[in-house]
């Protein structure tokens, strides 16, 4: 440093001094790192590959009614006969380790069924929609949008299923392109399901309600009813405060949320008013009591399946260890042709069928 200064004074030129100082400042700043350093940066979220813009903004071209009809006819012609692209391997034995694909379904309502012992139970009706296989990712191919700190060891294959065929002229070109490979009509709903590598289905295969069997357990994943911003009594079931006895303006409030002193702050996770509902929840281990083959409807136990009537849910084979199926499941999906002789409805053994005569209790001796 001293040497530099001596050099500078030797030349004794002010402009030169300024220049030198400027250079020095640059040297100094390059050595100092003033950015905030993050040890484990948050992984960047990417959308899955099928997450493109779906609907076109507005169709303002005024097509005449005849041409509209013509377009519909073309669509009908193009998508009327879809066949699976490829052979389904039909000779694999099902074992409990194998994971089959789930399906997309619609919650269509709740009504009671009666058991053979006379007990009434509430059941939820789930309509399995027209599920077609849209895409198939091999285990090494599928790149999950969220990666954990450790890589997944036993990677699974992934099937992209679509349900509810829509009008292709209302979807974007990008979105319609997703369905080019499988040849099915563009679907309104897409969902991916992880499967064991040998449970993969060829593109364009239809998965029906017969994929499941009566008596088995299911996990159902859906979004709960959106209740908006709610108070503490509705959201967390707090008791509130008395209606009278000198209580003023705090009948439905939560009360105290913590102490002072060392812990004088709001602790994370404190139950407070806020948005309620519209979150993904899984109803686990619900049992199938009845299946209707004709309309693809499942009756499952319970009335607490998340979501409101006419909302979409995803159905999986249950992962609860004690409710694994005993009989082999149709693998990779139900393949046999359904003939008209088989009855429309399949019932669980415990359920009283409405077509049966009334219940009579046997007298104990």
């Amino acid at each position: 440093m001293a040497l530099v200064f001596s050099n500078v004074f030797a030349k004794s030129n002010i402009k030169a001094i300024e220049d030198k100082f400027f250079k020095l400042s640059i040297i100094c700043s390059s050595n100092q790192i003033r950015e905030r350093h993050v040890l484990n940066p948050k992984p960047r979220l990417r959308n899955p590959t099928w997450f493109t813009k779906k609907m076109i903004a507005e169709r303002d071209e005024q097509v005449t009614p005849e041409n509209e009809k013509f377009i519909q006819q073309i669509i009908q012609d193009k998508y009327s006969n879809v066949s699976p692209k490829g052979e389904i391997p039909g000779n694999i034995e099902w074992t409990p380790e194998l994971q089959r694909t789930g399906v997309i379904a619609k919650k269509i309502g709740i009504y009671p069924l009666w058991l053979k012992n006379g007990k009434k139970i509430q059941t939820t009706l789930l309509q399995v929609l027209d599920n077609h296989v849209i895409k198939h990712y091999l285990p090494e191919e599928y790149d999950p949008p969220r990666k954990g700190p450790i890589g997944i060891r036993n990677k699974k294959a992934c099937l992209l299923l679509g349900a509810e065929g829509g009008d292709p002229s209302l979807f974007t070109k990008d979105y319609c392109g997703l369905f080019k490979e499988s040849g099915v009509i563009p679907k309104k709903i897409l969902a991916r399901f992880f499967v064991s590598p040998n449970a993969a289905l060829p593109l364009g295969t239809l998965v029906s309600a017969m994929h499941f069997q009566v008596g088995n357990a299911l996990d159902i994943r859906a979004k709960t009813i959106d209740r908006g911003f709610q108070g503490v009594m509705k959201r967390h079931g707090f008791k509130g405060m008395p209606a009278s006895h000198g209580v003023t303006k705090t009948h439905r409030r939560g009360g105290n949320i913590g102490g002072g002193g060392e812990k004088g702050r709001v602790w994370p996770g404190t139950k407070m008013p806020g948005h309620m509902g519209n979150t993904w929840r899984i109803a686990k281990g619900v049992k199938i009591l009845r299946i209707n083959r004709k309309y693809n409807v499942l009756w499952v136990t319970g009335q607490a399946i998340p979501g409101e009537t006419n909302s979409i849910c995803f159905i999986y084979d249950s992962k609860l260890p004690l409710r694994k199926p005993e009989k082999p499941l149709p693998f990779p999906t139900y393949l046999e042709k359904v003939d008209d002789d088989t009855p429309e409805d399949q019932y669980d053994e415990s359920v009283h069928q409405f077509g049966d005569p009334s219940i009579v209790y046997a007298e104990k001796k």
Partner: protein
Amino acid sequence: MLCLRKISKTTKGLRVYSSVVKQANHVKRTNINNLRKDVLEYRHVYPEFLPDPNIEFRNTLREKLERNDMLARRSHINIPEFYVGSILAVESSDPHSLGKMHRFVGICIQRQGCGLRAQFTLRNIIDHQGIEILYEMYDPAIQKVEILRLEKRLDDELLYLRDALPEYCTFDPNMEPEILPEGSPIPINETKVKLKPRPWLERWERKNLLGVQDLELPEKFYKKAEAVAKPWEKYDLMKEYRKTIPEEEQLEIFNEIDSRLQKLHVQGKKMKKRVFVKPTKLA
């Protein structure tokens, strides 16, 4: 040229067709109007076949499956036409009783629910003790629903019988069924019930009851009832609309099940035993 000729022929055909259709339509329309009235009458007889009018719960497929199940149950049990105010006898299998069979006679004071959840409440007074039992219409444990006296009352709900003098809802458990002659209208029982003095279970003076004698209350009760009444609600057209199923939908529903219901009706008549009403004394 050839194409044009073809088109002209088709249009001619169409014209002829349309005129035929018009004539047929005219004849049909009068028939349809008559049929429509008959079908719409079902709403009084089978109100539980109409779904819940709440839009948020509705789904056509669910409603259809529910109706199919109801009809399947009705093929095994004859649930006759009855109204609030009719006297019924219900026989159900009961695991608790000694004979495994249970029979209760009473007046129907309320009908609620739709679809497979349809319920009705029977009330009777046995040994000076008022007893009510709630039954589910499509419960498979019910063996027989017998109608002892078919009639209507002035009100849609007879919950005020709980506060009435006991003679108004005391019925003999061994009552014999009274059969109305074929095709006669449902009689309306216009008895006015006398209530016990207050305290009551509800404020009956606020309910605009028709089948009740003068309540004999001080003037302030009526004044208060008038103050809390909501006379404008009956003009709320949309509120009314959202509680009903429109005619078009009712027609669709009842046309779908019409033939099956008629078959069940015929079947039920065959099953019914012939019981004669005792002739009343003339002098």
